[in-house]
Structure formats: C-alpha cells, structure tokens
C-alpha cells in the first residue's frame, strides 16, 4: 500500500517546496507538487494546502485561491473522508472556501510576525492530531500578517470540539503574551465537524526537524505522522 499526498501549488504559494521536502525527505511518503489547475482528487489519499501568498493575497488573503478548481476537487475528498490540512495561507483558503468556520483578520499589531511560539493541543481526535495528547505543548513557528482568528460562533465551536490548537506559553498557560496575533480565545487552529480537515496558522513543516528548532524539537512531524496513521486506518 503506497500513500500518495498532493501539495497544491497555487500561484505564489511559497511553502509548497518546504511541505514536499518534509513529506518526501523526512516522512518518506510519496508527495507530489500539483499545479492548482491540474489537480485531480482521485489520485490522492490526502492534501496539503501550503503556506504562502496565493495570488499575491490580492483582494483578501486566500479568497482567490478559494475559487480555484482545486477547491472543488478538495470538497470531493473531504466528503469522502480523506484528510486535508491548510497551513497558514492554506488555512485562510479553507476558511474562505467555508470548509472551516471563522475568518483570519489582520494581526492586532498591524504587522507581519515571524517567530517561534507554542501551541497547546485541545483536540487529539482529528486526522492530524491523533499522534498527540490533549494538553501537549508544541514548539512551532508562525509567519503571517493576517492570522487573527475570529468567529461569531465561539460557543458552537467549543461545543463541537472544533478548536484544535490554542496559543500558549511553553508552560501551557494561555494569555495575551502567548498570543502572537490577537486571535480570539488564543485560537491557532480549528477543524471541521468530521475532523478530517484542519487549518492552522503555525507551520508544522518548519518544525519537523530538530536542526530547525531553537529547542531541537521536531513537533511538526506529529502532524504528518498523524496524517499517515489516519490514511492507513482508512485504507485498511
């Protein structure tokens, strides 16, 4: 059984090659870079919507990509129960496509922010967190200008257990100091009701090798290990 994952290349996605590097080079699974207009869901077991500035983030981050044919293909995959992750710009695309609830607004600081932060696992039942434990604190970097999570339905999100990650200190304390962008309730990542689709602002592909981490950790790998585990369970 060979697992095949697509990394969608939207125009000006720029973390596409990084995702490919981690999936192929670190995780050892078969991942392909697929130009957004060429993407056909039938060939793949899972999809990564990578970070970047799809279509230059012109108009609004993620909105143009959300109208790409690749999104229609992705919808089919989601209905079918296959795993889909949106990282950073990919998260923005997934909210614009309304696969995930909420919206991502300009950072509270009004500035782009690139730094290593921490997130705490709130839900380990999703396709991308099944190798984590609830309450785990992960080392991971963010790099975005529009990452302030907002929803007008926080209550429902909580009731449905759709909050997957929240920004915290390395000791696991929530608080404004741990929140890099002013996100509502420190929300860093959410999932759909079926839990096979997640989106998050931090970059797991930048945190999957100890050499890249200031703490020599590789917590980002857990996302992809979970994804592979999820696919294996589906296929078996």
């Amino acid at each position, binding site marked *: 059984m060979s697992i095949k994952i697509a990394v969608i290349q939207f*125009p*000006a996605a*720029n*973390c596409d*090659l*990084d995702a490919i*590097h*981690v999936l192929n*080079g670190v995780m050892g699974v078969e991942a392909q870079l697929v*130009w957004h207009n060429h993407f056909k869901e039938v060939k793949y077991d899972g999809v990564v919507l990578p*970070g*970047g*500035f799809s*279509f*230059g*983030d*012109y108009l609004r981050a993620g909105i143009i990509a959300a109208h790409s044919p690749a999104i229609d293909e992705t919808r089919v995959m989601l209905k079918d129960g296959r795993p889909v992750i949106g990282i950073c710009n990919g998260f923005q695309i997934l909210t614009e496509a309304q696969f995930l609830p909420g919206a991502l607004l300009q950072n509270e*600081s009004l*500035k*782009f*922010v*690139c*730094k*290593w932060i921490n997130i705490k696992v709130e839900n380990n039942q999703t396709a991308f967190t099944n190798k984590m434990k609830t309450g785990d604190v992960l080392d991971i*970097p963010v*790099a975005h*200008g529009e990452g302030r999570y907002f929803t007008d339905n926080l209550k429902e999100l909580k009731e449905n257990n759709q909050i997957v990650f929240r920004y915290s200190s390395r000791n696991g304390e929530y608080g404004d100091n741990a929140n890099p962008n002013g996100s509502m309730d420190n929300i860093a990542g959410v999932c759909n009701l079926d839990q096979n689709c997640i989106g998050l602002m931090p*970059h797991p*592909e*930048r945190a999957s*090798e100890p*050499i*890249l981490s*200031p703490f020599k950790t590789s917590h980002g790998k857990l996302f992809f290990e979970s994804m592979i585990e999820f696919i294996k369970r589906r296929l078996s």
Partner: protein
Amino acid sequence: MTKLRVNGKEVGVEMTKEEFGKVKDLLKREPNITELGMFDVMWSEHCSYKSSRPKLRLFENAEENYDYVLAGPGQDAGVINIGDGYALAFRIESHNHPSAIEPYHGAATGIGGIIRDILCMGARPIALLDPLRFGLLKDNPHSQWLFKYVVKGIADYGNCTGIPTIGGEVEFDESFESNCLVNVACIGLGTIEDFKHAPSRAYNPGDYVILMGGSTGRDGIHGVTFASRTLTEMSEADRPAVQIGDPFTKKMIIEATLEAIKTGYVRGLKDLGGGGLTCATSELTGDGNTGANIDLNKVFTREPGMNSYEIMLSESQERMAFIVKPEGLETVLEVFRKYEMNHAVIGKTDDSKILKVFDGESIVVNIPSKALSESPTFIRQEKEPSYLHKLLNQNTPKLNLQLDDIFYKLIASENICSKEWIYRQYDHEVGVRSVVKCGDGDSGILRIIGTDKFIAASVGVNSKHCFLDPYHGAKGGLVEQCGNIIANGAKPMAMVNCCNFGNPEIAESFWYFSRSVEGMNDFCRKLRIAIVGGNVSFYNEDEVKKIAIKATPMIMIVGLIEGEKNIITMPFKNVGNDILIIGETKAELGGSEYYSVIYNLEGGVPPKVDEEKIHVIWDFLFKLYENDLVLANHDVDKGGFIITIAEMCFKNKWGANLDLTDYHTNGLRDDELLFSESVGRFIIEVNSKNTDKILKLAKDFHINVKKIGVVIPESKLSIKGLRIDDFTLDLEKMKKLYDSTIPDLMDI
C-alpha cells in the same frame, strides 16, 4: 542637465556635450531621440560606472585567482563553487534614491531587482539581507516614516516571494536623514549545471528573443539617470521615476524562469532593471558579440500610444528577457503559459553585431550593439577633506557620568539596541534552511539540504568609522563581517560590496570612495578573500542641507561551515563556564557610539586594522573549533565588549562576574577599555577545565587572550578591576532598555 540640439530640436539630456560628441563618432551620424535616450541611460553613472571604473580596476580578477570563483565582477552576480555540485550566486546593490522619495515601493523594487539578478545566473534565490541607513529616529517623524515603510516594503516583497530575509544591519545617523540608504543583497543556490545554462549573453545568431513577465508601462522612465544625480527639494517631483513592485508576479517569474531553464532550451537570460529593454538587449547582444532585430509592436504595453522612446527606456518592474533556441520555442512558451505569464517573441538574434529596433515597418534604432557599453570614463579628482584633521585630533572628554548610567544609555541607543522590531516583520524561516534563529548569531546561516554544508552571510560596515578614516573603516568593515561569520564557525570565501558615497564630481566625496576601495583591495588581497561583485551608488547628498552621507562601503561576506557540529551560536550555554576575550582593546574611541551617544561628539581616531594579527586570531579560533573548545562566540562590535557580553547573557537571563585586572594592562583609561570599538575582537565561552589549555595555545599563537569572567545564574553583570570602584549592572533593566527603544519610537 545639458541642452543639446538634435535634428533641429532642442532636447535636455544628462550627458555632457563631450559625451554627445562621442555618440556621434560611434554612430558616424546624429542619433535620433530614441537612440539619444538609450545612450543617455546606458552612459549614466548608474549603468556605466564611468567615475568608479578606473578605481575598481584595482581589484584582482577573482575568476583567475580563485579556483572556486565561477563568476566575478561584471556579471549579474558573483558565483562561487561550494562543492558537492552546488554553486552560490550573490550580489548586493543599492536602491537609495527611489527609497528616499517613496520608501515602500523604493525598497520593494530594490528587492525585486536583486532577485532578478540572482535568477539571471540560473540560481534559486534562497536568502535576502538588507543593510539600511536612516536619520536618527527620536523626534524625527520623517526618519520614522522612511524607516517604517522601507522595512514594510522589504517585508511585503520578500515575504510574498518566499525568500527568507536572514540578515541585515541598520545605523541611524543624521547624515542619512533625507538620503537614506537601502542596500539589498540576495543569495541564490543552484547546481553547477544550472549555472552553466544561463549566461547573460546572446552568443548564438538565429535564437528567439522573448520578453516575459509584467507589461511595459510609463513608470520608471529614466530611473537610472535619476539615480545618477543628487536629490533635491525638487526630487519629490521625480516620484514617477520610482517603479511600482508586484511581488506576486515576481514569484511567478521566479518559478517560470527556473522551470524554463530546466527545459535546456534557454541559451541566455537577462533581467530588465535599470535601463529596461535598452540595457537588456544591448548587453545580451553586445556581450554575446551578436546583433538582433527587435519589433516594438510585439512588446505588450500597459497603456496604448507608448512611443519607441518610452518603450525602450521604461523601467517597469517584473520583466525578463530570454534568448531561446529555435527548436525549444514551443516548450519554453508552454512553461510561461502554465504560469499565466504574459510573454511575447519580440525579435531574433543575428550575426550583424547591430541592434536594430523596428516600430512596425520603420526602423527607430540602428546602433552597433557594443556601442552602448562603450561609455567614456572619467578620472575624478580626489582630495582629503580639510575638516578631518581637526576631527581626528579630538580629545576624549572628561568622564562626567557614572559608568553604569553610560551603559544604560548605550544599550538603549538606536544603533546598539535590539533590532527585533525589524526582523520579526521578515519571514526568516521560509525555505526550511534557516538553522540559527535571528538574535542567536552574528550572521545568517542556511543549510544546504542534502549535504552537511552550511553557508553563513553577514553584511554591514561602520559608517562613523568610515567617515573619519575610509581606508581603515572599509578594512574594519571587512574584519567585522568576516568576524560575524567566523563567530558562527564559518570560513570566509568571498565578498561583494556596495559603495554608497556622495557626488563623485566633488573631490572630497570622491576621496572617500577612492580610499575605501583601496582599503578593501589591500585587505582582500592579503587575506585571500575573493571580491566577486560590487555596485556603486554616488550622488548620495542632501542638497538642501549641503552635506554628503557618511561614507558607506557596504560589505557582504559569504562563507562556509562544514558539518552541523561546527555551528557556534552567541548565547551563553551554561552557568559556571569561563568568559574569555580574544584580541586587544586599544585607545580607539573615534567614531564610537560612546562618543556620539554620551557626548554628541563626532571625531577622534577610529579603529585601525592589523591584517597580520587578524589572520592569526582567526586561525586560532578555527584551531579551537577543531577541538570543540568553544561553546559560544560573539564578535565585539558597537559599544565595546561589555555590551557584547550583556547580549550573550540575555537569552537565558543569566549574568557574569567580570574581573578585568589581567586585561586592563595597557595604560588605557577605563572608558577607553570599556567603550573602544577596536575591531577583530571576540568574546568566547569555554568550559573552565579547558581554559588553561586555551590560554597556553594563545601564547603559542602570540595573541592576546585573557580570561575575564564566569557565567553566573543571576541576571547581573558585576565588573571589577577598573581604576574606579567596582560596579554592577542590572541586566534585566538593560534587556528592557535594549528591547524597548525601537518599539517605543515606532509603535505609537
């Protein structure tokens, strides 16, 4: 501005009457208006280096003298072989004048231009570094505006194109108040094969000339001539000469170009930057010893009705010219279609050695393709400024403050404080190569994936030192940049420079340029560092205030680290370890931050470089590295070595007990010892059980290395061994001051 009569009409050009005579000699007739515009642009200082060329000939030929140099000065970028089949391309250039008028787009298009230069060598851009200069921020809304939008311009453009900004440097000084400096550097990575595929010349007749990317508009016409004169109050009216950047299109151009090169059908490649289509077509054919027919009707324009003059001189951004083998035309065009990039076959090369441009049926340009690169050179007068003598003889004032107060003031000063406000806005992680985090090292370090090699790069120079002594200031800049990468474990390989000076027609300004070049040349020859490229930006003066900028020969050094275990970082690693200082502190307070921050003084004798000694110190450090004896290393820079030690304490909130008795033996005043910016010094952290061994080795090397302290768990620096009483610095307070200066000025 010169007024000329051409074909019965009066026209204004930047070239002199003598240059116009040479144009007529080359063409054996009068040029038409389009041709005249092309010569005017190509013979501008910015494109032709007519003032600087005679002096730059001092530099040795890097390609001939260094076996690892694959491309040296004169190409779009320098290229070095780093082994394992990989090559690095890098270059630095200025975008000062556009940024001084329109900081956001000026800086953004500076990044755009330097990316294209790297792309032209067939390499993928993998890092940006941006050294900057502004007026002092405090109480100066204009400087704050320039600073804010230059940083935002770099961030928005670099982040969108997916190239991490891994380093930079900034100084604030009133001489840069209206003429800020925005220098941009880019590093590209490719295989040696990739590099062979993309020469920046059209050497084969019968190939297609393709224009790809953004459309040609009326923006940026005469941008380079604008860069070749001094900014004045009238310069605001030149705002249309600043181009508008489009990082989204640039990202598409990067991917489409790299994919097109991979087809194997691209025979030549040139970006359209300064001088636009004129520069690209004439250099491709001139350097390739060919000619070409170009049809302007094929060029896709942003607006109708553009005439041949406008199309040939437009500096619209995001355009590339490709020379493509006839049999590969469809394959290459298919790549451009995939990326939905505008493109057009605009002509064909031939063996005529003449550049002919047609507007439909009528020929509008007919000039020998080499003629545009045959600009005359000027031997400029140089004269040491008369004010220097008095400045150099400045005596150190009487110490009038408590030492601890001086340290708190220094750490909070704009030139020493943390630059986190800047680098947090840059994506420095994209590309998954950045292995040392900003603030943890003196240089930017990237891994070469698939190997155990790492590259390190550092850029900067001390403008205050260069103002007082450009010869030693330039050398000091080299020592400092080399020191930054050596502190992280890298061996320096090659350098590129960006010379920012005043008006070369003024003898005093040209003297600064001349002495800086001599300093760089002497140092690089002696220490065997290849100079693989450079850029010159003159006319950085403020006509209103009648001052030139402080001389700024910006230097970027690139080096290599073999093996992950050989990467050294700055923060102290453990309590109880010994702190050693390497190198001698001399009475060199000239141009120091201590003088300027505490006494508002400009003057004194700045640091001088001793090449022989520096080299031994570097050899000594590598000897220690070989034996895994160094746990942390930080090059001593602005503010002196106590500031250096404080920075090493910050990350883990530790401190140090310092005893300077053994080191304070040269008869220096206390403030000279503490605040001199003598170059070539390092602070290292070592395990105390190795200290004796290291000190003994230092004796064998005949260099000055002293143990001056130990790392302690408390966040304080206690200092004894001075003539005055012992004192203690509160490092928590220092860190707070260090972190808050720029945010307090900018985030209001």
